[in-house]
């Protein structure tokens, strides 16, 4: 059984694996051969010549430095690939994943929801924004050679580009309790056209639109609306900006910052504002937070065109 190579990085990972495997095989065969030759030649009772060899500094240095140089070579190769594995391309499309004991819940920006399944288009880089509702899980697709732990109350990301249409296994790789081994699913990679049709067929209310509804429903707009009487930070164009904090430091307003600002508002207080925002920890789930974050990301120039502001 050969593991399929179904992502843009799979072949690169396998090349490194095979190179290291060849190197190690060479070392194992070499050392074993020498050991066996010595064991046979110098076994008790043979007439081999046995004057004790002198200790050789040169020999020691050789077998210290040669492995060191080889290891550094493998390290360099690996780091090069590692940085690629960890850096999503700019045009990667976001998909949101919430893990919980023992299922994978997926939300697409267009409102399509899936459980234990993830549909992706072939050839398009996908960036998964993942969080967990309870314990630590790990999103693992062997055919793509990608894996990332999914942590509670924090976003981790994972990117890949599927290169072959097909259905691939998805595993939870971090032990997460009783049914850990059943926390499996599948990733369906589809040709771009099929994927567009699938999105169409499963379209729901868009994630940002869900977020906007929640924003009003939860009373966020009561303070954060520019016309509100309360002195609260302006959220337009917030995403991606650097925010000065009350303690003099600065924070980048990324997904994690927005997530924590909603659930743990006391953690990072924006400079010039009173820490009066209530925490929504326990009141809303991770999926709602995802929707709110998706909405906040669209606020700004685009919201000028929204009906609400016209």
């Amino acid at each position, binding site marked *: 059984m050969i593991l399929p190579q179904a992502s843009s990085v799979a072949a690169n990972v396998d090349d490194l694996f095979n190179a290291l495997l060849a190197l190690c095989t060479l070392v194992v065969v070499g050392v074993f051969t020498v050991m066996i030759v010595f064991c046979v030649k110098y076994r008790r009772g043979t007439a081999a010549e046995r004057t004790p060899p002198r200790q050789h500094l040169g020999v020691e240095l050789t077998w210290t430095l040669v492995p060191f140089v080889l290891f550094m070579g493998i390290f360099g190769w690996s780091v090069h690939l590692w940085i690629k594995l*960890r850096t999503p391309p700019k045009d990667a499309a976001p998909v949101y994943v919430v893990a919980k004991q023992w299922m994978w819940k997926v939300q697409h920006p267009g409102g399509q929801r899936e459980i234990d399944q993830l549909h992706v288009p072939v050839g398009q880089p996908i960036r998964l924004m993942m969080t967990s509702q309870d314990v630590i899980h790990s999103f693992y697709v062997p055919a793509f050679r990608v894996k990332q732990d999914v942590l509670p109350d924090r976003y981790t990301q994972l990117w890949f580009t599927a290169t072959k249409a097909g259905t691939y296994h998805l595993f939870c790789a971090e032990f997460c309790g009783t049914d850990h081994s059943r926390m499996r699913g599948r990733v369906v990679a589809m040709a771009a056209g099929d994927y567009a049709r699938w999105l169409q067929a499963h379209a729901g209310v868009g994630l940002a639109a869900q977020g906007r509804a929640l924003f009003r429903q939860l009373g966020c707009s009561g303070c954060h609306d520019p016309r509100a009487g309360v002195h609260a930070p302006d959220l337009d164009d917030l995403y991606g900006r650097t925010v000065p904090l009350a303690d003099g430091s600065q924070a980048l307003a990324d997904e994690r910052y927005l997530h924590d600002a909603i659930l743990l508002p006391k953690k990072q207080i924006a400079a010039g504002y009173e820490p009066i925002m209530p925490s929504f920890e326990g009141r809303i789930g991770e999926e709602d937070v995802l929707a709110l974050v998706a909405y906040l990301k669209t606020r700004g120039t685009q919201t000028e065109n929204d009906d609400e502001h016209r």
Partner: protein
Amino acid sequence: MSTVERPAPPRSYLEEGFGLRSWLTTHDHKRIAILYGIGITAFFFLGGLAAALVRLELVTPAGDLVSAETYNKAFTFHGVVMVWFFLIPSIPATLGNFLLPLMIGARDVAFPRLNLFSWYLYIVGGLFTLACLLLGGIDTGWTFYTPFSTMFSNSHVMLAVVGVFIVGFSSIFTGLNFIVTVHTLRAPGMTWMRLPLFVWAMYAVALVMILATPVLAMTLSLIALERLFGVGIFDPALGGDPVLFQHFFWFYSHPAVYIMILPAMGVVSELITHGARRRIFGYQFMVWAIIGIAVVGFLVWGHHMFVAGQSMYASIVFSILSFIIAVPSAIKVFNWTATLYKGDISFDAPMLYALGFVGLFMLGGLTGLFLAATALDVNLTDTYFVVAHFHYIMVGGAVMAYLGGVHYWWPKITGRLYSEAWARFAAILMFFGFNLTFFPQYILGWEGMPRRYHEYLPQYQVWNVLSSAGATILGVSYLLPLLYLGWSLRRGARAGANPWDATGLEWQTPSPPPLHNFAQTPTVTEGPYAYRQ
């Protein structure tokens, strides 16, 4: 190495009292070593039973033999028991306790009472762990990852945590004892560069024990605080950070791997020099390799966390350090091989174990390179590749070396010989059984089978069946020594002081040694392994 005048053989340490009381109140390092030996043997077979249950379940892809809950508890129990109640105390607390004073020409360790106290701590810790098992077990995995262990698991986490906490102090005290002993009780002429490599290994491992184990104790205390009192340290719902736990845990648990393998390297250096009847090749390089491994071992913990949410750059630093620590391991393998060159090699059981160790350690060490390479680790971590890798090091390596050492020093410890034919047979059977059990797991891991899976995809079955078949052979090969060594205790021929015609101070005193080891403190005039040539 030295000569000791021996008048009529004095009473051996085994004849210094026969009642249970004489054993349970002994201050003699040799008797304490035996007490540890009994304890770790019992835990080894208990942990082995849990492993047998795991391998039986995995014969079929469906989870059909035991429930998922039972399966999770079985592998957790296996891990907790084998790591803390067998592997960590195995060589240091038995062979180390017995041999360290003998090898440096001392009458006992520096603090004999503390030595006995650490054995009692070991037993109390063990009782907590057994209580945990009897009351229903624990299902967190031996790694106790948070927030699962603190807020979500409904099993008896606290009992196991308390058990491990207590047994940790047993290794701290043993470490303290060894360090002071090596510093203060060496016989005249036993300079640092004349120490047998086993003593160097014990010294290095003692340093790691006293520096790393307190971190484990703190981490477990924090778990208790969070689980019992809801103090938010690791659970994000309480404002904590679960990845912080992993940093703390691996800061101890990676050095702990070296607590298991450094003593094994020490034992093997003794066995190979004796088997080849040669000085160790590159003694000074071997010493510095031991020190290097012990020091750098503290700086590589983050390689367990490449996909855990650690920063990309931190992972790069941990990766390069992990490659660097492979260099001293490579040096050791090359030097052992070179020690065979122009030797006068005999293949008695200890030598077979030692050669088996070198082979298995090499396969385990080299596969560590795959895991140190960040880009490969992404795919391999948390799969059976990791399981195979650390079993090659800890079972193929540490257990082979432990058993090799037990066979080599058995005549010294008991004063009896065992059946050499059976011993060789067991060593060879073990080597093949081990490879059949764990080599298929490398393949399973590369093909993506995650570890700790109660049920798995049918495509993985062939390798799992092979692995379970191997485990059966391995189990038999572990039971055999119990039988022929047990037989040797009663019926074995008497061993002389030095049945192997070996060098080393421990062979210059009767077997079994008298209470205070040497009739006269020996004087050392040359380095170790002075085999005639």
